[in-house]
């Protein structure tokens, strides 16, 4: 779990409280927000990439075979990918612990 708070000494702040680690929000596990999980049926998937380009949370990336795979570390479970999938290859499933 990445450090979510800014609890630091005033002496360790950068000038003007600037953040000098580009994109360090990528440490944050927004996957914790999810109650529904998208899963892809590869038999239906046409590798069209709609899920990739419509994801607000940059969850999808292409694997070696050209399929788009979810990174559940970030997925907030909004379900846009499932709704937009033109061949209904993606379905939403209840998260279970």
């Amino acid at each position, binding site marked *: 779990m990445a450090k979510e708070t800014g609890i*630091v000494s005033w002496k360790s702040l*950068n*000038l*003007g409280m600037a953040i*000098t680690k580009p994109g360090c929000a990528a440490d944050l596990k927004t996957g914790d927000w999810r109650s529904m999980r998208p899963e892809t049926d590869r038999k239906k998937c046409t590798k069209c990439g709609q899920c990739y380009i419509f994801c607000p949370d940059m969850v999808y990336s292409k694997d070696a075979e050209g399929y788009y795979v979810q990174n559940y570390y970030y997925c907030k479970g909004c379900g846009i990918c499932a709704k937009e999938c033109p061949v209904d290859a993606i379905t939403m499933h209840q998260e279970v612990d």
Partner: protein
Amino acid sequence: MSKKIGVEVSIAAADAVGLCDVDVVAAYPITPQTHIVEHLSELVAEGHLDAEFVPVESEHSAMSACIGSSAAGARTFTSTCSQGYALMSELCYIASALRLPIVMAVANRAISAPINIWNDHGDLMYARDSGWIQVIGENGQETVDLTIAAFRIAEDPNILLPVQVNLDGFTLSHMIEPIVMPDKKDVKKFLPAYKPQLRLDPANPITMGPVGMPDVYTEARKAQDEALKSSKAQIVKIFNEFGKQFGRKYNLVETYKTEDAETIIITMGSLSQTAMTAVDMMRDKGKKVGVARIRVFRPFPADELFAAIKGAKNLVILDRVTSFTGGYVSGPVCLEIKSILYDRKHYPKIGNFLAGLGGRDTTDQNFMEMVDKVAASKDGGVPLAYEFINVRE
């Protein structure tokens, strides 16, 4: 040594900015600051100054553009006063918090209402809690020198705070007087090129101005407070270096005939000059009077000011502003001084006078009356905490 030339103080101030080779000037016109920015746009138009002049649509955008420019790493200047300052003040607080070394000349002017284009320190005091360094010139030469020193102070790696150079509107900004303009080579030696520690650069991306939640806001403010606090010693060093380079030495507090003075007048800005004239006249009559002039208002030079005034039995403290407190609390300069004295358990008689408001002249005669009033009083001479000078009943 360069020759003295006759020049309007605003023009000289703009030329000083030119000598500092600024990269960006973003400004909006307001009386009595206009001559400064007009001349800068002229310098750019004629090719005497290689800079971008951004003719913004408001002071709010002037300071916004200055913040963008300084964050991108450029040496940046603007100028305003009064309502212009009020409009941009939101951004001034942000400029200092982002630690951007912007230099701004303020041709001090009263705050509305009634609308009044003339001089007082309404804008200077409006800015006092903004986290900027505030320096104050008394004449044209000081305005020029402090403008050059301001860039050096602002950009000092140990300071990195914006600096406000205050010059009294009209009484200084529109005055033609003899000024020695420093040599460009000397300025370059004194003021090396600005090397930002952090800047908006695609090769090294940073995030400036992030959200500070309750877990870090206190630390951010503490860091900024420390920066202003520790700037004081560095400003003294820079003033000393300026003295070595240009032969004119500046201090946080300047004194005039205070050594043996029973009464000390405390002033800021061009009024100090009239006060010194009055002191000479009173000395001729055998009165032991002196003047302590505050050259740097933020960071407040408490120790230096106390050292200058501790020998006096009476203090005449001028505030060139109305600071509405509802009656009992003094004007802002007096308030600072009272707190110094309280901390040091030292209690001279004090008269606090609100003088020179909205361009009202304060004469040598006025100073003599104030000195006499405090000297003759038992409790500071003023029934309440302060008194308006030259007000018609």
